[in-house]
């Protein structure tokens, strides 16, 4: 729980034809994190085609499911095998055919909708032309010297098209608009019609079909348009029927496709990291927990009966940064983990701060927001919204409980400081003591972070930093010594001389280390050493004083409650009650939120930034379902 589980690097060599089953077996095993295979002799990527086919099939399946609807939950039989590349290609081809058919239906529906809208426009056009008493038959004569076209184009193109057409002696007359489309008549010399053809195509011009009967008998037009509309409705219905038929007919096969693609997912996902091979062999590389090696061998033996070769080794120091961190947490600690991960993932071998984080965070929250009543309200609210908040509700419940505990220690109940006797101290009545305790806590916290940093640097093989740097043991010696000197000056301790003997050499070692590490000319090196050593001193003490906010917020809590009471006392009975209720809601919502953020801030900036690199990689096991 305090550090990642020890891992082994494995390379599983097997027949390339069984790679998909090997990946599926590892996915079922549940704790195999794939990693790139770096064996130069294995130059081929035997799973690349598999991944490509899987990605294509997945994309097509997703589009089909979007069209046809979900087919229900996928229940994978335990004995089911992953499809081979040939099976996957076949499935992919089938999905392609089905989607192409579906797409054709979509295209048909879109085309019919477009034609319908154009017919509507044509009807309007005819109504307008009737009013103008224009002889369409004469106007649209194919043997006339004047070429006339009726159609539509995007409104934004009209001006540009008109300017361009004017260059060939053509005129454009706009007579209607529907949405972004304008309807227009284009007329010009027929001899130059070829010159405008390309331009009109480029401009997205859509010709409105004007059948012969429409040109001569306006009354016949209505009947023709109606017949066309009925015909289009029929076509539309038929297209819809084909699509619905596809849905009914395809449902079971689509479900089957989902199942097979789920079984194919492990190899396709592993191929992203790089499955290598040569000839008929393939290698899957990755990380597994050392403790589960026996179980892994049993699983592979049961599935492959010895038709594999497992190569294992410990992670080398050079690849530590690439090793994923597999952390296991008890259920009660798991809700706090996202708060740690929002800062970063522990590097492999690094101290995992989740456990001390949970305790310290709750402690800081309780100390800054100690109130039996407000704590109980937070606890009840978190429990009431547990379903909506998920695992985070547990953080709320725990924070509320700790707040109640500190409320008892402070003797505070909904801001009333005199209803219950404090079991420990009342920040309002003894603020100096509260501030002193907060600083003392800060000292303990910083000592802990320095020790944790020295440990982390040590396990990362950076002994110099662990021993001599400002956040290492030399920095710790200086800090403890300096705290001892200050405490002696303040009369709390009587250790000035030995403390100074600890602080002085500690600081000298830190400065010497800074000097050694600085890569610069003499002047710059002196400057860097001086500034960085001074920065060490300032940082350590400013960070310590930063913990005074813990006491300050506990005082702030009382002050806010007093403000609410003062406001309430100035109002009548009803107003008094409303002010008290609203005031307490504000205290819980606003101050509670601020304190939650401040506690997090103290953990991140005064704690994590000192020892936690947070640049590790999360252990992401190969799985059958979507991550």
């Amino acid at each position, binding site marked *: 729980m305090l550090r990642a589980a020890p891992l082994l690097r494995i390379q599983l060599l097997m027949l390339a034809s069984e790679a998909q089953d090997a990946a599926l077996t590892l996915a079922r095993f549940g704790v195999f994190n794939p990693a790139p295979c770096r064996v130069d002799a294995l130059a081929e990527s035997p799973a*690349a085609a598999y991944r*490509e086919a899987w*990605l*294509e099939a997945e*994309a*097509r399946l997703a589009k089909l499911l979007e069209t046809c609807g979900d087919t229900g939950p996928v229940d994978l039989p335990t004995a089911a095998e992953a499809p081979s590349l040939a099976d996957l290609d076949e499935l992919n081809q089938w999905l*392609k055919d089905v*989607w*192409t058919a579906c*797409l054709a239906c979509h*295209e048909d529906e879109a085309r019919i909708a477009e034609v319908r809208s154009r017919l509507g426009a044509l009807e309007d056009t005819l109504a307008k032309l009737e009013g103008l008493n224009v002889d369409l038959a004469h106007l649209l004569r194919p043997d006339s010297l004047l070429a006339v076209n009726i159609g539509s184009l*995007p409104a934004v*193109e009209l001006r*540009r*098209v008109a*300017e*361009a*057409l004017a*260059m*060939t002696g053509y005129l454009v007359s706009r007579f209607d608009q529907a949405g972004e489309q304008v309807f227009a008549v284009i007329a010009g010399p027929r001899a130059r019609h*070829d*010159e*405008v053809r*390309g*331009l*009109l*195509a*480029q*401009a*997205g*011009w*859509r010709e409105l079909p004007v059948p012969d009967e429409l040109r001569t008998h306006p009354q016949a037009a209505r009947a023709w348009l109606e017949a066309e509309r009925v015909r289009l409705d029929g076509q539309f219905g038929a297209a819809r029927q084909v699509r619905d038929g596809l849905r009914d007919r395809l449902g079971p096969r689509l479900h089957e496709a989902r199942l097979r693609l789920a079984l194919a997912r492990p190899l396709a996902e592993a191929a992203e990291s790089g499955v290598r091979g040569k000839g008929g062999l393939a290698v899957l590389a990755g990380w597994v927990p050392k403790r589960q090696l026996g179980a892994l061998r049993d699983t592979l033996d049961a599935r492959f009966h010895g038709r594999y070769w497992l190569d294992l080794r410990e992670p080398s120091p050079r690849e530590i940064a690439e090793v994923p961190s597999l952390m296991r947490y008890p259920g009660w600690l798991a809700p706090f983990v996202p708060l740690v991960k929002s800062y970063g993932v522990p590097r492999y071998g690094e101290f995992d701060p989740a456990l001390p984080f949970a305790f310290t965070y709750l402690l800081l929250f309780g100390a800054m927001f100690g109130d039996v009543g407000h704590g109980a309200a937070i606890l009840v609210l978190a429990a009431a919204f547990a379903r909506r908040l998920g695992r985070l509700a547990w953080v709320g419940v725990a924070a509320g409980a700790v707040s109640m505990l500190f409320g008892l220690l402070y003797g505070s109940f909904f801001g009333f400081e005199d209803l219950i006797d404090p079991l420990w101290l009342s920040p309002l009545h003894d603020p100096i003591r509260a501030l002193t305790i907060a600083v003392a806590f800060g000292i303990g916290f910083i000592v802990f972070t320095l020790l944790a940093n020295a440990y982390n640097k040590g396990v990362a093989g950076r002994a110099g930093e662990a021993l001599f740097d400002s956040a290492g043991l030399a920095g710790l010696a200086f800090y403890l010594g300096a705290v001892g000197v200050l405490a002696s000056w303040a009369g709390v301790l009587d250790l000035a001389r030995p403390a100074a003997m600890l602080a002085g050499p500690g600081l000298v070692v830190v400065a010497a280390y800074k000097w050694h590490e600085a890569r610069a000319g003499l002047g710059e090196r002196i400057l860097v050493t001086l500034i960085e050593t001074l920065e060490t001193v300032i940082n350590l003490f400013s960070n310590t004083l930063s913990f005074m906010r813990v006491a300050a917020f506990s005082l702030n809590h009382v002050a806010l409650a007093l403000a609410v009471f003062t406001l309430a006392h100035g109002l009548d009975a009803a107003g008094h009650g409303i002010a008290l209720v609203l005031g307490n809601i504000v205290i819980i919502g606003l101050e509670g939120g601020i304190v939650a953020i401040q506690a997090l801030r103290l953990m991140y900036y005064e704690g994590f930034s000192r020892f936690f690199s947070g640049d590790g990689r999360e252990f992401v096991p190969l799985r059958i379902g979507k991550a």
Partner: protein
Amino acid sequence: MSAYLDTRVTLFSGRLWTDDALEALIEMPDGAVAERLTGRGLPQLATGYDRTGGTPYPRSLEQRIIGQILDETRVLIRPLTGDARAFLDFWTARFEMSNVKTLLRGKMTDERPAAILARLIPMGSFGRLDNQDLAHAEDAGELLRRLEAGPYAGIVRRARRAFEQSHDPFSLDAALDRGYYEGLVQRAQPLEDTLGAPFRGLMANLVDRINLVWLLRYRFNYGLPPAQVYYLLVASRYSLSGTRLRELAALDSLEAVLAALPAAWRTQLPGAADIPAVFARMEHAATGQALRVLRSRVPEIARAFAYLILRERDLRAVRAVLRGRHLGLPDDDIRLALRRAAAGLS
């Protein structure tokens, strides 16, 4: 914002390549090239160059060059908000437009999604398209419809309508290019109003140059009729206005077009007898103008834009040298390629 951007542009401008630096790069021993590239602020190119003998670098030279430009734009854009940010943001969108063309061509030739995806330019935080999703479209029609639901809907809708009529890839490319540059002109307008002549000058040079070269290509290489040529050009308010472009498009020869250009333009094009020569001279003039803007005390956004124009020209030249070296060409051939690289359209 002003001080940050000004300082950044000044620092970046120290990385621009002079002719002498390019000449030195041609003659440099292999071992020193990566170091020189890093020294000139081209770490992505240096990394790729270093690995030529080992595992192939996953990105092509073009992808790394554009990656470098995007990295620098990201730094320059950081303090900007409003119109200035929108403009520089859209300036990078032409790389995404090139991705759209790659996707469309891939779909037209029925390429597999993985092959298409490998050729796309990684846009990083400037990317607005879901390339994975688009690459898995079944055909060009589905791809266009998906694109129409995205951030370039306006540009793509126009291209789709043109493509549906003609099924000609040229229609698609021309519509996408025109749509992009009209979008750029539209985003430049508010900046031209506030930043004045230096910025407007850069935009005018860019758009007029593009219009003239497109006009010459469409008219005399592709033989398109004048009306269609005019329609395919970028609607512009600069020196080559709509009226002037119509007059030029109606002319019958390259010489006649060059003779009909404004007097100031003719002085920039002495002896230009073909389209590459016209472009090379105009590019040269544009470089001079961008350098003047970069070195003057004008609004910092104009300087940043001038820097980006110059940097792109620079990187085209560096690409020509690196490619020449990679192919083992003689130094003189690389110098010739360098002169031609300067004539490549951005």
